[in-house]
């Protein structure tokens, strides 16, 4: 077990390093990075100053060293737009996103799992067809459009829910739905097909031979096995949520790191974008690492290895 943890940790660190390299390389790919990193109204002095600070006149490996050293210190440059250290801006906004993500994930699980089970248990009936249709539509709907439509219907036309910004509980409804729908659709299909697969297993026959009812067999025996593929995909789902948050926060003017990413793109705020990406990467890698460890701990085959 310990070896597993260490190995995964090493992998994550390596990935982070590779990502940093990619970021470093991209900044220099299209000309002088100084131009990317400066404000439009910067003076020649500012430019010269930056050139010196980044060591842009020095060999590449020295530049890399400076970049990495700075990163390890927590210095990822200064946001052009906010004129503050990029990391500071990021951590200011992070809590807001962290409120939305778990809500969407939990909401998705709570809806997708029962729906998936019902669809599998009542395969072929109207329940199955309806949930299948919902899933297919959910996957095809672009979340940015969904958010806008929801705003139009519930906020502008019906005036029931607020359309933007953070606030009371009602502010969380639409963004959570927008963020979670894609996840629900995908999860539900997976639960359904995985469950149908498990329902054909031999141990299901044995469970029924003990005198258990089909309902008990599905929920107690089949579902835990069926959920294994869902949990293995947790990392993928988390990445989807982070991605989705960019668009959702933009549409709902939610002051989180997703919207920050959007702003960084729109305003061509390269230092901020760079910082956001690296910091998000750390979070994603950290979460994946944590999930892998938990999963390895729970799986009896690995635990007792």
């Amino acid at each position: 077990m310990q070896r597993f943890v260490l190995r995964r940790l090493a992998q994550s660190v390596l990935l982070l390093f590779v990502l940093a390299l990619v970021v470093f390389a991209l900044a220099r790919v299209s000309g002088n990075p100084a131009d990317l990193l400066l404000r439009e109204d910067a003076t020649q002095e500012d430019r010269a100053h930056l050139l010196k600070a980044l060591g842009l006149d020095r060999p590449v490996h020295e530049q890399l060293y400076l970049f990495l050293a700075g990163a390890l210190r927590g210095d990822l440059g200064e946001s052009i737009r906010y004129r503050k250290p990029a990391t500071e801006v990021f951590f200011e906004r992070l809590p807001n996103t962290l409120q939305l993500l778990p809500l969407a994930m939990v909401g998705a699980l709570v809806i997708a799992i029962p729906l998936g089970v019902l669809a599998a248990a009542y395969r072929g009936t109207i329940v199955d067809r309806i949930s299948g249709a919902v899933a297919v539509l959910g996957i095809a709907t672009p979340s940015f459009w969904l958010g806008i439509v929801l705003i139009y219907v519930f906020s502008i036309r019906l005036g029931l829910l607020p359309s933007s910004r953070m606030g009371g509980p009602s502010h969380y409804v639409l963004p959570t739905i927008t963020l979670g729908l894609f996840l629900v659709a995908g999860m539900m299909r997976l639960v359904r097909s995985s469950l149908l697969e498990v329902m054909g297993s031999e141990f299901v026959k044995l469970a029924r031979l003990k005198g258990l009812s089909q309902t008990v067999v599905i929920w107690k025996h089949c579902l835990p096995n069926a959920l294994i593929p869902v949990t293995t995909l947790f990392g993928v789902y988390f990445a989807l949520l982070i991605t989705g948050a960019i668009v959702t926060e933009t549409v709902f003017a939610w002051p989180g790191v997703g919207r920050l990413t959007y702003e960084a793109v729109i305003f061509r705020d390269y230092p901020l974008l760079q910082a956001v990406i690296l910091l998000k990467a750390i979070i994603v890698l950290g979460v994946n690492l944590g999930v892998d460890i938990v999963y390895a701990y729970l799986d009896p085959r690995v635990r007792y290895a």
Partner: protein
Amino acid sequence: MAAGAPVVLEVRDLRAYLYTRWGVVRAVDGVSFALREGETLGLVGESGCGKTMTGLSLVRLLPEPAGRIVDGQVLLEGEDLLTKSEPEMRYVRGRRMSMILQDPQTSLNPVFTIGDQILEALRQGRADGGRSLVARAEDALRRVKVAAPEQRMRAYPHQMSGGMKQRVVGAIAVAGEPRVLIADEPTTALDVTIQLQYLALLKEIQARTRLAMLFITHDFGIVARMCDRVAVMYAGRIVETGPTRALFRAPRHPYTEALMASVPRMEGAVTRLPSIEGQPPPLHDLPTGCRFADRCAYVDDRCRREYPPTMAIGPAHEAACWRIERSPSSR
């Protein structure tokens, strides 16, 4: 022998069909037999003849929605199981009739400990005032000769060998003290050395509890060891039934004869291993006459036209073949 003991299970003209994309597969097409208390009846035949489907039909666990029992009666201690509702069948399963499946690797749920799975079976069964469920589970494991049952309770299926898993499956099957046990090729997936031990175990359990066993297999060696009586199945129907010894010594149905002949013998020179020519007919497209006709050495026109009725040969020995009518005495 168990002759004279009360009949525990009687199956009359059971028909179970599978509705597939190729058409209607008549997996079980008019099967009848009787099982007495304490007796072991072997159900033999080559793969695909319908023996497993017969077993599943008795407990009404055919693959849905394609499988369906279309006719017949299954009388367990006089009650027709086919007329029971699903909640009533749930009561029967495990408590009055139970089954051991073929592959121990897939019979147990990989995410639960075997203790959990045995406890679950016990909870469905009769209450035993005075002893805790865990104690009863450990007892059940001891009775199937699993050493150190207290530790084994906490083990997961993947931590046990195939033989041990099959013992656990056996423990689960008899936990509810059923009257009838259906064993569907329980030793096919086990090592040869383990097979004998397992069969001995089943025999011991049977002696202790007067269990009636339906033993489904394709292996005549096991039949000789385990079964008091044998029913030979071919293309969805039983072609011969009789006491084991009588069947082995003097098989009357040409298929049984051919099966016996194809069992390799150690004595004597062997130039070619005998086998039966041809294939069984496709179960979705069965002929009107005798189903063995195409491969039979004694076939005549009547065989192809009419399916032979089951005719008596000796005490408790019968077969479905026109030849018996032609020459009623053996040979």
